[in-house]
């Protein structure tokens, strides 16, 4: 079979057509930076279509750790930030990076661990006491170690228990430096305890031998906030579209959408805007 100039030209043309640059749509959109745990919970897949139907605006979510998400807002690479680290959020609002911050919802953290429960904490209601037992038993504990909202919450709880987990680094305290899912994978793989948000846990499919061992302590409640990147710092921010999203999320309509999101019949997030 001859492969003349024509055949070569044909191949090049075909691959060029296939590689045609993705058309720039006229679709109006905003970029929201959020966390991997929020994205993995599936909340966005539920509420964003509702917002798009109502306003015609597409919401593009870039999911990273909380630290990265906030940093992205500071750099002006997104329009809205939607994370769960109230202290850090308020600090950055004070510094002028964000405006119009609102509480949105909360979910809770739980401690998961192996069914064999080497530290004997299953069923406890006091998270600080449970963590104390885990550290005394030197039972394996997988931490995110990635500056995320979950990681900060975990560190706050260790502090409340007056324990420095870094002492056990490399032995029973294992920092994965990754997202919630990856950390749970690691915990499942080494039969370790871990602190996780309920949302990620409910949709996590690789549980192996893990189950919820501690839940319900008020100190494990995780507050979510939404805010607009300050247009004075970054004039390129889509101020109107961004505020439309912020306002919708805290409106009765948006709050209902949040409450309606369930996994296996269970509600994940509890709206508390303006409360």
């Amino acid at each position: 079979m001859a492969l003349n100039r024509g055949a070569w030209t044909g191949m090049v043309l075909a691959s060029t057509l296939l590689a045609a640059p993705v058309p720039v749509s006229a679709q109006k959109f905003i970029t929201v930076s959020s966390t991997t745990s929020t994205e993995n919970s599936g909340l966005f897949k539920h509420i964003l279509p509702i917002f798009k139907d109502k306003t015609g605006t597409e919401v593009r979510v870039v999911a990273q750790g909380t630290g990265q998400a906030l940093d992205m807002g500071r750099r002006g690479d997104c329009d809205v930030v939607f994370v769960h680290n109230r202290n850090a959020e308020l600090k950055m609002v004070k510094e002028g990076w964000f405006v119009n911050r609102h509480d949105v919802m909360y979910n809770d953290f739980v401690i998961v661990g192996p069914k064999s429960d080497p530290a004997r904490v299953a069923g406890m209601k006091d998270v600080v006491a449970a963590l104390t037992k885990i550290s005394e038993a030197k039972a394996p504990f997988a931490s995110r170690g990635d500056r995320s909202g979950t990681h900060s919450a975990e560190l706050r709880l260790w502090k409340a228990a007056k324990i420095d987990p870094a002492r056990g680094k490399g032995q029973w305290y294992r920092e994965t430096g990754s997202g919630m899912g990856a950390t749970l994978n690691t915990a499942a793989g080494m039969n370790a305890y871990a602190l996780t948000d309920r949302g990620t846990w409910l949709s996590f499919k690789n549980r192996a031998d893990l189950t919820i061992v501690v839940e319900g302590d008020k100190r494990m409640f995780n507050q979510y906030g939404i805010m607009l990147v300050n247009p004075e710092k970054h004039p390129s921010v889509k101020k109107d579209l961004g505020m439309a999203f912020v306002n919708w999320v805290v409106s009765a309509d948006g709050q209902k959408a949040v409450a309606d999101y369930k996994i296996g019949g269970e509600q994940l997030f509890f709206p508390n805007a303006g409360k």
Partner: protein
Amino acid sequence: MNEILLAVTEAGRMIARLDGALSEIVLLSLRVSLTAVILASAIGLPLGAAVGVGRFPGRQALIVALNALMGLPPVVVGLLVYLMLSRAGPLGQFGILFTPSAMVIAQTILIVPIVAALSRQVIEDAWQEYREQLRSLGASQLTSALTLLWDTRISLVTIILAGFGRAAAEVGAVMIVGGNIDGVTRVMTTAIALETSKGDLPLALGLGIILISLVLALNAGAYWVKEAAQRRYG
């Protein structure tokens, strides 16, 4: 073993029902990597030919640099491109970040050294064979470079495919500059990373099998073309 069997079944199911989300992801992966490899070839092939045929001071250093850059870590390229395209960076005003264009840029940067370094080797080897005859016929260095590019086209196709394989397989660069946005910048590799992080390993593996199959099919096709051309043209 069970996981792998689950993955194969999952992959089969997804392909059989021509899953919409899957098609979108696969098409985007192909478009991004193909565009990148075409751009990288447009830059890398002439560069490789120029260095292969030309003789100038610093040539050896350039060859060493090109060979070394073949091993550029994708995640580093992603980070550098991110910093360039970020609003806080020099090219921020174009708003390219978190679009497929940014992914194409990052992958192009990744593949250019591969295409340039490998084509340089191929063309320099051919130059050894052709040099005296081409000079005798009066070909300039530029004409010689172009003639060699056409004459070594069969080997060059292999090189271009190697570049495509590298692009299609990487996740570090496209994750950072694309943001893995659902429906916009989610490609096969970032989807696999996402499903893995969600603990849905069968789905992640299934996607992985599809990705490998695609690259395999492409390579098989190119190998067949190469063999046919070799027999035909000698």
